[in-house]
């Protein structure tokens, strides 16, 4: 019960900080819109090929926009050493880490919804809306994986002089399995594939999520120490 209360306390504080500062979400949403425009200019996306490209484009945007937002939420803790309050309180490092993961997950999901809306508007691809209930599971599992790895490494990188360079270098290679799982399951849900179901990819996403979470919970405690 205390574990849940502590998580709620930190998530509520993160939401309040985001409402006031509007740093993480606004920057993520702006970058996702920018990337969509770049994709539109760089790739000839039309009615014929949009369904083949949509899953890849979306997940690349989720990964890149997500990194920025997660860096910001960790910065609010590192800035002025505010995280030390938690270190010296009765709140466990595990519940603090889990709370930061949930805050990042929430921001990621909001950014993803905006990205999907932008995509539908820009490329006139309404199929995304009708498939949204089915897509919610890979989106949730993939975003959770991003959030776990991103929270861990953003805490590491914000304490470093070259943090903004280190974060994507550490984050992107590690989330490749999540990207592959996310792209494949999204593609199957949107386009269907003979004899193939998203179940296999969702299981892979789930396995990697659990793996990331287990390792991160162990490592996070050591990252907090200078």
């Amino acid at each position, binding site marked *: 019960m*205390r574990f849940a*209360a*502590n998580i709620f*306390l930190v998530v509520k*504080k993160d939401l*309040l*900080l985001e409402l*006031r*500062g509007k740093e993480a979400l606004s920057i993520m949403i702006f970058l996702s819109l920018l990337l969509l425009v770049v994709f539109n200019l760089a790739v000839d996306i039309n009615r014929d090929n949009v369904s083949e490209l949509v899953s890849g484009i979306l997940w690349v945007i989720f990964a890149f926009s997500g990194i920025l937002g997660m860096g910001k939420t960790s910065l*609010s803790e590192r*800035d*002025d*050493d*505010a995280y*030390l*309050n*938690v*270190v*010296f*309180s*009765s*709140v*466990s490092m595990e519940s603090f880490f889990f709370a930061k993961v949930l805050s990042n997950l929430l921001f990621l999901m909001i950014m993803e919804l905006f990205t999907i809306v932008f995509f539908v508007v820009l490329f006139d691809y309404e199929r995304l809306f009708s498939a949204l209930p089915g897509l919610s599971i890979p989106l949730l599992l993939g975003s959770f994986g991003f959030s776990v790895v991103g929270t861990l490494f953003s805490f590491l990188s914000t304490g470093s002089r070259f943090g903004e360079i280190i974060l994507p270098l550490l984050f992107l290679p590690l989330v490749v399995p999540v990207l592959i799982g996310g792209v494949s399951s999204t593609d199957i849900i949107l386009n269907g594939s003979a004899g193939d179901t998203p179940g296999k990819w969702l299981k892979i996403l789930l396995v990697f999520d659990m793996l990331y979470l287990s390792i991160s919970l162990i490592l996070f405690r050591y990252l*907090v*120490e*200078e």
Partner: protein
Amino acid sequence: MIRLIDINKTYSLRPVLKDINLDLGVGEIFVLFGHNGAGKTTLLKIVSGIMSPTRGRVEGLEKEPICNRIFYLGHNNGLYSELTVLENVRFFQRLFSGGNGDNTIIKKNLSEFGLWQRRNDRVRSLSQGMKRRLALMKTLICDSGFIVLDEPFTGLDLRWKDTIVEKILSLRQRGTTVLITTHLVEEGLRLADRVGFLEEGKLTLIRKRTEIDELQIREMLKGEVCS
């Protein structure tokens, strides 16, 4: 009792702390003086458990869990700049006590630290001195048995220095052990039960307050500057 045994710290082969041995009694206020770069902050971080020594150990504070038994206030204030004064205090109280902060106590504490009128202002709009007062307030109201303060008087005017000295002295009555570093000799000596002097990573002097006077400390601080 908190016991520092053979604490050594090396940064990139450069020794910062050398064989520090120190016992801190329950309810004792120990004030550490030293030149800039002498290793005071590093020592305080090691004692607090947020930095590991290269060699040696701290006894009396088992690392797991350190929660609610020790509190460290460093050069930074540990505040969320986008939250208001009241929101910061409430968040802090809930972290430490679990329940909702008692409004009467919060009002009393904020008034005592001269921050009640600014309770609804965001922390980023406060002056450096006000931020420090808020940080000290949250440090001094937590029920930790051991409080570590790194330059607590930074940014405070004369009036508030006196108030903070009184507040720290009152911790002695509840048995809280306090370890402080400061460059302010007068305030440091008003607080101290014992005094230490850290010089180039070595604890070169430990004396009871009654065995040393202000002039001696000033002479030591005016002495050879660390390279």
